[in-house]
């Protein structure tokens, strides 16, 4: 969410804010989320347009000057107004796959080490004045159990480990584990569910492969066209069904919101900015560099915990795959008629086809499996 907030206010305002304000901002985001619950629309609970039926703060807290945020942050919770019109915002958050991809860079573990070192000594030097608020906010929001009753507080006596609390939904939704274990290199312990989408990866790769065929032959005129629109639709529906099965009645929405929020905070810290200015903690660590992954590598070097060498691919795939999976869950590609949107080039870079190209490129790099290669049938 913080990366979306940063389009409305300066990221510096977020880094400098009081943790109380940031926690309330997240509550307000959940409270005002896109929630199409009109029964006439027939949208089931758990759908991207109706993620949960849980309330954040009680409704009376939304009156008057609530939520308690400073004027600098108020644009985030203020109804939008533009030439096109005005009205309340209905925020949406990224798909859980965003958090999974970004966490694979080992970013969370690297910053955990940063906060740990600053909290326990001066191995990294003394934190600068500007980085003090970032350190406090980070520890308060992402390395504590969270305030009681808050929607992002998913830790409890029953599930006390925040890191394990993210690995569990990753395994349930995608049948995948993070590529790193604990600091000691051993597999990270967490509760694995029996009901998990173990076919997600194979189905998704088949989907990517079929879309790539469509891209290859979209303008073919002098050869046969092996694009199989019906198969693309079948695979999209299969993905939708398995993902939505885990989301029944709004299941996993809080966990998703919490994971996405945490990863976005660290991602924003690293991606801000690419014009030779940096987040306070990056400056404090003397980790300025060009490019999000290069800053991560430098921070990782400072604390002696290597980040993943393919971090750029994880960062670059995260937004595109999040948006495409939200669309798949919405059912946008359930019919063969809609399939061409995935492989037909359109003007601009903000299209499903451009997103699918990015996903195919980076997925191939990350997994080492070339989804552009045709499957070879064996007798």
């Amino acid at each position: 969410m913080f990366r979306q907030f940063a389009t409305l206010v300066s990221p510096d305002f977020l880094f400098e804010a009081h943790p109380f304000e940031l926690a309330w901002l997240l509550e307000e985001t959940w409270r005002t989320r896109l929630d199409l619950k009109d029964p006439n629309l027939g949208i089931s609970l758990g759908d991207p347009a109706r993620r949960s039926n849980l309330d954040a703060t009680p409704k009376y807290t939304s009156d008057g000057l609530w939520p308690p945020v400073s004027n600098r942050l108020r644009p985030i919770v203020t109804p939008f107004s533009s030439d096109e019109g005005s009205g309340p915002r209905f925020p949406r958050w990224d798909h859980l796959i965003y958090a999974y991809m970004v966490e694979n860079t080992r970013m969370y573990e690297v910053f955990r080490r940063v906060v740990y070192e600053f909290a326990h000594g001066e191995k990294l030097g003394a934190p600068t004045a500007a980085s003090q608020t970032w350190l406090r906010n980070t520890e308060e929001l992402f390395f504590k159990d969270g305030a009681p009753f808050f929607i992002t507080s998913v830790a409890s006596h029953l599930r006390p480990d925040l890191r394990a609390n993210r690995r569990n939904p990753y395994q349930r939704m995608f049948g995948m584990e993070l590529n790193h274990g604990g600091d000691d290199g051993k597999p990270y312990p967490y509760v694995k569910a029996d009901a998990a989408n173990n076919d997600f990866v194979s189905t998704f790769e088949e989907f990517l492969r079929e879309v790539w065929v469509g891209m290859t032959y979209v303008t073919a005129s002098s050869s046969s066209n092996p694009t199989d629109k019906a198969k693309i639709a079948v695979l999209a529906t299969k993905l939708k069904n398995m993902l939505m099965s885990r989301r029944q009645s709004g299941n996993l929405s809080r966990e998703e919101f919490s994971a996405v929020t945490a990863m976005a905070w660290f991602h924003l810290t690293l991606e801000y900015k690419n014009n030779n200015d940096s987040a306070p903690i990056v400056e404090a660590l003397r980790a300025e560099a060009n490019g999000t992954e290069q800053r991560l590598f430098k921070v990782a070097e400072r604390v002696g915990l290597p980040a993943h060498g393919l971090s750029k691919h994880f960062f670059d795939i995260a937004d595109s795959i999040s948006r495409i999976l939200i669309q798949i869950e919405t059912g946008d590609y359930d019919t063969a008629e809609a399939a061409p949107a995935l492989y037909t080039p359109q003007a601009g870079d903000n299209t499903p086809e451009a997103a699918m190209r990015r996903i195919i490129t980076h997925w191939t790099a990350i997994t080492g499996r070339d989804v552009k290669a045709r499957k070879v049938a064996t007798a």
Partner: protein
Amino acid sequence: MARRTRPAASAPQVQDTADSQTSSQTGSQTIGGQYPAPCPSPSPDELSAVLVELLRKINSQVPPTPPLEGRALAAVENFQEISAELATLADVSASNFSTSSRRSA
């Protein structure tokens, strides 16, 4: 380790045989192993002009991307709506997204 080198290129040896007699009749060689005088090489400008013309012809023959309609078009529009709702600083700076674009419930 000895480096393997490619043998130096040399002009083909033309043998004065029946074969060469035959080929001389087609004009590819002359009796006695002499090649005809080489054609003058085109200048770089001439070459690039030919290439540009060739590319223009090839491009004019590439069929246009088929237009999207119906559900496919709706899917593109919904993707753009979702992208606007999830726009980040990078999106805004890259494409001047309108961050005010929000779906109404």
